[in-house]
């Protein structure tokens, strides 16, 4: 009963709250070359809209690259020199919106909202004037100039596939041994649980690495997703994530009684939360606080961030070490718990 | 004597593998017919064909007087089937199971109530009417499954290894039921791995590699092969 009614209701609630195409409290930075009343008004309008939070007022334009690479600031608004003056004298001024398009969906939303605020200001501004003034906003999608949607999907798909397939492989493999009865003999032998687990993980690790290679390859060749950063680092991170997923599969096998349950948990139970809460499609920033908190326990969230950073932004370990550490920690935790739970007897 | 099963030159092939190789045999009304053979000899294939669950590759097959190619539905209405894995729902009560199976065969209302009472009385299980099947001992489940399979008074009942695993007394009590049923005119077609149960049958056939290698009464077979037990007949054939 719980499953029959509970799951549709829960899914509806989650989907309903998550699929919002609105944003709120997105961190931005502003580089104001003019610092006059017009820019001040505009900045005020942006800040009080509720959509954005001004994180930093930049002093120079040189650090855009670095700032966006850090991954916290999603948009930088640049006001050109002598903004108000240009408006008065030439009737037009320029604003540049530089968005972090490693998450194309979010970038699109952010720039759309910003442009909306600016246009609103222009309309109000022109109410009292004879001659219409213009503010041109030029949008730059950093890391993804052509706004390819494959940039959105390929990293996420990589994470999803690696996660599900790896967890599925190990969890099913072990529960199958329980079902055919061969596990009984292994348990009754001098083998240590760790040897049994390792014996299960290694072959799938090798297979998964090949899998990862293929996915990166296809992503790069067919979908033209660049590998701006170090390929070696990308591979290592992928191996780490895969190991984590395999260990998750081991853990599932200590909980699942048979293959059916293992498959259910690995595919169905994991799939939706991973898709929804990892930032794969729907930006995490959009979600209600509680889901944002939940997303912190989703390993895929960290991996997607890492892939986007390496592939699209081309950054190195110094920026992703935190996410890497989290994944590493999760892996160790899963191994420890699994070994502990792995019963040396049948009950 | 009326013939309940008539099989002539039955052949069943799965791709290039011949599971049943030109079988010919008959079963008379009221007989207890034992269908023996090692796993993989082709027994299950034959039973499925006789029950109308699978179509032969070629050959004539008539069950309960009906042709199994053209009158499959009539065949199904006139046979009963019980397998080792039972067929009763564990989370329904005895009464509910009877109601369910009665419904399948079109036995409803007063007639069903009457049959239900008679069945339970015969098995001495009136007090278990409202008990869940899952809560009953294995032997009781077996006897119930058997009786329910007979609810619609079929002409013949097929039993697929019905006594697997139970203790010697329960097994014999089950065979008491089989005897009773046959004495009432219902033909019983049974497969078993217990060689002593082969002795309870009027006639037995032994299958090996898709063919029938022996068909006669247990006594005659023992004389024919010059041995004392059916087990030894079996060994002689296999070797």
């Amino acid at each position, binding site marked *: 009963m719980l499953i029959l009614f509970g799951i549709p209701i829960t899914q509806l609630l989650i989907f309903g709250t998550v699929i919002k195409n609105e944003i709120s409290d997105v961190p931005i930075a502003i580089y104001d070359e003019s610092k006059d009343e017009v820019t001040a008004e505009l900045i005020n309008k942006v800040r009080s809209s509720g959509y954005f939070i001004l994180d930093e007022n930049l002093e120079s334009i040189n650090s855009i690259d670095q700032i966006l690479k850090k991954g916290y600031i999603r948009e930088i608004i640049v006001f050109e020199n002598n903004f108000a003056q240009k408006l008065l004298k030439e009737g037009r001024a320029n604003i540049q919106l530089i968005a972090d398009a490693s998450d194309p969906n979010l970038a699109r939303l952010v720039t759309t909202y910003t442009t909306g605020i600016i246009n609103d200001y222009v309309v109000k501004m022109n109410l009292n004037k004879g001659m219409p003034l213009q503010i041109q906003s030029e949008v730059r999608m950093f890391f993804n100039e052509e706004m390819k949607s494959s940039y959105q999907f390929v990293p996420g798909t990589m994470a999803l596939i690696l996660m599900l397939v790896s967890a599925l492989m190990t969890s099913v493999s072990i529960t199958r041994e329980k079902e*055919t*009865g*061969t*596990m*009984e*003999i*292994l*348990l*009754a*032998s*001098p*083998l240590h649980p760790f040897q049994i687990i390792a014996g299960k993980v290694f072959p799938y690790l090798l297979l998964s690495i090949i899998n990862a290679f293929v996915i990166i390859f296809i992503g790069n060749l067919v979908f033209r997703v660049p590998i701006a950063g170090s390929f070696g680092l990308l591979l290592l991170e992928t191996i780490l994530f895969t190991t984590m997923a395999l260990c998750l599969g081991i853990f599932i096998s200590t909980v699942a009684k048979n293959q059916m349950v293992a498959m259910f948990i690995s595919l169905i139970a994991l799939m939706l939360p991973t898709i929804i809460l990892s930032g794969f499609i729907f930006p995490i920033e959009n979600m209600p606080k509680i889901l944002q908190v939940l997303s912190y326990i989703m390993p895929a969230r960290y991996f997607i961030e890492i892939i986007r950073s390496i592939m699209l932004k081309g950054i190195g370990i110094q920026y992703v070490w935190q996410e890497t550490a989290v994944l590493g920690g999760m892996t160790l935790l899963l191994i420890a718990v699994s070994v502990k739970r792995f019963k*040396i*007897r*049948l*009950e | 004597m009326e013939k309940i099963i008539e099989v002539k030159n039955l052949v069943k092939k799965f791709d290039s593998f011949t599971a049943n190789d030109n079988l010919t045999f008959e079963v008379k009304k009221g007989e207890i017919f034992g269908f023996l053979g*090692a*796993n*993989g000899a082709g027994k299950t294939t034959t039973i499925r064909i006789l029950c109308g669950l699978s179509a032969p590759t070629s050959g004539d097959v008539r069950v309960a007087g009906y042709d199994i190619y053209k009158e499959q539905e009539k065949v199904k209405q006139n046979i009963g089937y019980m397998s080792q894995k039972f067929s009763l729902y564990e989370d329904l009560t005895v009464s509910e199971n009877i109601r369910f199976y009665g419904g399948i065969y079109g036995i409803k209302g007063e007639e069903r109530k009457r049959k239900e009472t008679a069945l339970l009385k015969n098995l001495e299980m009136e007090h278990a009417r409202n008990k869940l099947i899952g809560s009953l001992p*294995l032997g009781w489940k077996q006897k119930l499954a058997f009786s329910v399979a007979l609810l619609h008074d079929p002409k013949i009942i097929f039993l697929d290894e019905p006594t*697997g*695993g*139970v*203790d*010697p*007394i*329960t097994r*014999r009590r089950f*065979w*008491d039921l089989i*005897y*009773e049923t*046959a*004495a009432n005119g219902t033909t019983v077609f049974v497969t078993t*791995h217990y*060689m*002593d149960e082969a*002795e*309870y049958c009027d006639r037995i056939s032994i299958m090996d590699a898709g063919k029938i290698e022996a068909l006669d009464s*247990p*006594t005659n077979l023992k004389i024919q092969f010059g041995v004392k*037990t*059916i*087990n030894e007949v*079996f*060994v002689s054939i*296999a*070797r």
Partner: protein
Amino acid sequence: MMIKINRVSKSYSKTPALKEISLEVSKGELFGLIGPDGAGKTTLIRILMTLLLPDSGEILVNGMDVVKEYKKIRQFTGYMPGRFSLYQDLTVEENLEFFASVFGTTIEENYELIADIYHQIEPFKKRRAGNLSGGMKQKLALSCSLIHQPRILFLDEPTTGVDAVSRQEFWEMLKNLQQKEITIFVSTPYMDEATLCDRVALIQNGQILDVDTPNAITSRFSSDLYRISAENIYKLILDLRKYNKAESVFAFGQFIHLTSTPDSTNAKELENYLQAMKHTNIKIKKIMPGIEDVFINLMK
């Protein structure tokens, strides 16, 4: 004493599986645990194999406690669980190699021990285990359990679901193994296999009904036993049950076994009774009981 079981009990949730079982098995014995499904055979063997913990009681295997010294015990015990746990998609050869490596040995090292058995399936060594017949799976599973030269072999229903010929061959193989001083503990639901063992324990509903050599057990049978046959078997059963001196009446193949208290009746009386009931072709003989007769008697 190779195996000492002292008042062992085990329950699953509230269902008792073993109730204060006590048994002893000597070194080099071929010991049979005889009983139907649900009697507790698999539970007991799993406890002996250190795969389950008993709720209470004590078990020593080769002098070692199954609970505390399970690691050591697992070094010298061989196990063949029900359903012959083999890797279906590995070949015969691969299965053997795998289990050899699990126990830290190789096929060559202990080949002598399994040679007789393995010879019979060697022609199929490249075939996948899943494609073997029941009898061949049996032999392979047995070989795998012997690959590390265990001192004790635990076999859980190795002959269930296998054809009569393979069953016979299997017991011949066990007898041969016994010559090599391996203690063998086998469980089976087939009563007739009891006579092939040195000693047996009859088990039903988690309790031991009797333990001894098959002969000693049957000699303890306290009733008279008559073997009867007639033209109409079913009518014979019904009529014999109405006989006032009959203790129990059960079908045994083509005969009926009737038990009665000692000297309460005789063959002639029975024949007269049956003739009065219009039976024909009556054959009556007083016989010695078999294990199954004993089992049925003890069950009541």
